[in-house]
């Protein structure tokens, strides 16, 4: 597998350095330990938002640091959660005194490392609330697994909770908004090909040319079912069915439809999926009020996509529309 890198060991450091140079007007990079903060952090009186996780999901999370979204992002090694010695200083750096919300994707490693960092931050007098994102309906039996994973919905939680913090909501209110988004969003993904972690040097799983994996996460781990390749409309139906069933989407619902690329699928194909998804939602009586289409939470160069549906209410819509200015998401300012 060819990769545009210098050394597998320096992938994250060099990528974050480049990111900092490209977006020096918006973010500040701390190189050791690695974390990224909003240029004007800490913002006086504002609740700080910190997220993080393994690298390889770009633009998540550092791409969402900026006004109206995250105050800090903490990148781990590729597909490996960051460590408390990164998360703690990032948390302290963005605390204005109003407290900090950790947005954590539900993976064993992320949960354990953020939990430790939150305890240490509390010991230093910083109030921390944690919003756990677990929107992945592919995990059917959460009793006998580590639970549903945090996937596409994470981007929506970060945007909407970020807007709540920006308008001046308090610590508990920001966390409650994040939890409300998580409670109202469901996601399902598909892989057409695997991805290759730089230090591993070969694909994370083996998939034949005529096979696809349904129900993948974002770490190159295999999914729940392997089936023969189908056309875009059929795959879209297959992804949306469990999403709509689990979210109990009914006639009259207003939703945000998010079709996310996994890193190796062209935008043109994502729009083909989006087109079909709108039809399926219309058949269910739901109206697509807002949309997001593109590569926003990826798994390196994996081919495939995920579809997220977020049930909107007036306040969530307003917070979604609120101005945001980050390297990867910008509107209204």
């Amino acid at each position: 597998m060819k990769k545009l890198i210098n050394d597998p060991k320096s992938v994250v450091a060099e990528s974050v350095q480049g990111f900092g140079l490209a977006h020096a007007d918006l973010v500040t990079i701390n190189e050791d330990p690695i974390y990224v903060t909003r240029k004007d952090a800490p913002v006086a009186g504002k609740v700080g938002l910190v997220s993080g996780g393994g690298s390889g999901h770009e633009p998540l999370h550092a791409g969402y640091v900026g006004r109206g979204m995250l105050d800090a992002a903490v990148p781990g090694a590729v597909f490996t959660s960051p460590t408390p010695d990164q998360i703690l200083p990032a948390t302290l750096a963005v605390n204005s005194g109003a407290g900090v919300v950790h947005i954590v994707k539900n993976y064993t490693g992320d949960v354990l490392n953020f939990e430790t960092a939150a305890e240490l931050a509390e010991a230093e007098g910083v109030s921390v609330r944690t919003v756990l994102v677990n929107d992945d309906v592919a995990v059917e039996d959460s009793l006998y697994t580590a639970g549903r994973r945090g996937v596409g919905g994470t981007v929506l939680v970060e945007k909407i909770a970020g807007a709540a913090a920006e308008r001046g909501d308090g610590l508990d209110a920001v966390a409650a908004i994040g939890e409300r988004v998580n409670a109202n969003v469901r996601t399902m993904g598909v892989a057409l090909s695997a991805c290759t972690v730089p230090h591993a040097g070969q694909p994370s799983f083996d998939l034949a040319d005529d096979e696809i994996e349904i129900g993948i996460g974002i770490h190159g781990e295999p999914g729940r079912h392997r089936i023969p390749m189908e056309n875009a409309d059929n795959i879209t139906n297959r992804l949306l069915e469990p999403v709509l069933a689990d979210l109990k989407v009914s006639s009259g619902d207003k939703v945000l439809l998010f079709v996310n690329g996994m890193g190796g699928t062209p935008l043109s194909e994502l729009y083909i999926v989006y087109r079909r998804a709108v039809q399926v939602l219309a058949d269910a009586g739901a109206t697509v009020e807002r949309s997001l289409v593109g590569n926003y939470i990826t798994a390196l160069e994996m081919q495939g996509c995920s579809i997220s549906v977020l049930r909107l209410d007036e306040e969530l819509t307003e917070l979604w529309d609120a101005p945001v200015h980050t390297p990867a998401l910008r509107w209204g300012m």
Partner: protein
Amino acid sequence: MVLDANWAVKWLTLCAQAMAEHRVELIELDRAIGDSDHGENMDRGFQAVLAKLGESTPETPGAALKMTAMTLMSKVGGAAGPLYGTAFLRAATALGDSAEIDPAAWAAALAAARDGIVARGKAEPGDKTMVDAWTPAVDAARAAADGGSTDVLGVLVAAAEAAEAGAVSTDPMVARKGRASYLGERSAGHRDPGAVSSALILRAAVGAAA
């Protein structure tokens, strides 16, 4: 043979050597049922432990294990960082500041480590995790230390062999915790990488005493 600070330093050095030697094997095991990072993370973590040992020499086995705990927690990441960090920290606490470890103390340290892993990771025996290596190791160490045995090498060997058998026992299991649990039935037929790295650590303890 006495299990003192020198032994502990040699043990940790051999752990680093074992993780470097088995890096690719652990990545491969993790590639099958996880996300291909376990070998890389364990190698990076124990290389950092080696670097720390080069900076200062711990005075007791407990001090060596505590330093290891803090280093793994800050360098490994993923689930393995907090889990091994907690294991080494609980073992260090169990050993206190005693200068030497006798068989009963080793069994108690392993039990504390295992309890720490269970407390953090919430996994039970049979869930296809490192607990399936640690639990038989604790049982075997306790049995070997029973009745006030003074055979320190014997208790180290018993724990290492039981951990290795425990790692093999994960092959047919269906994962219920950690990244592999998302595979459901498809996780059967693969060995758990965390159980394998746990067995490597306990085998290195034997090597340091030989």
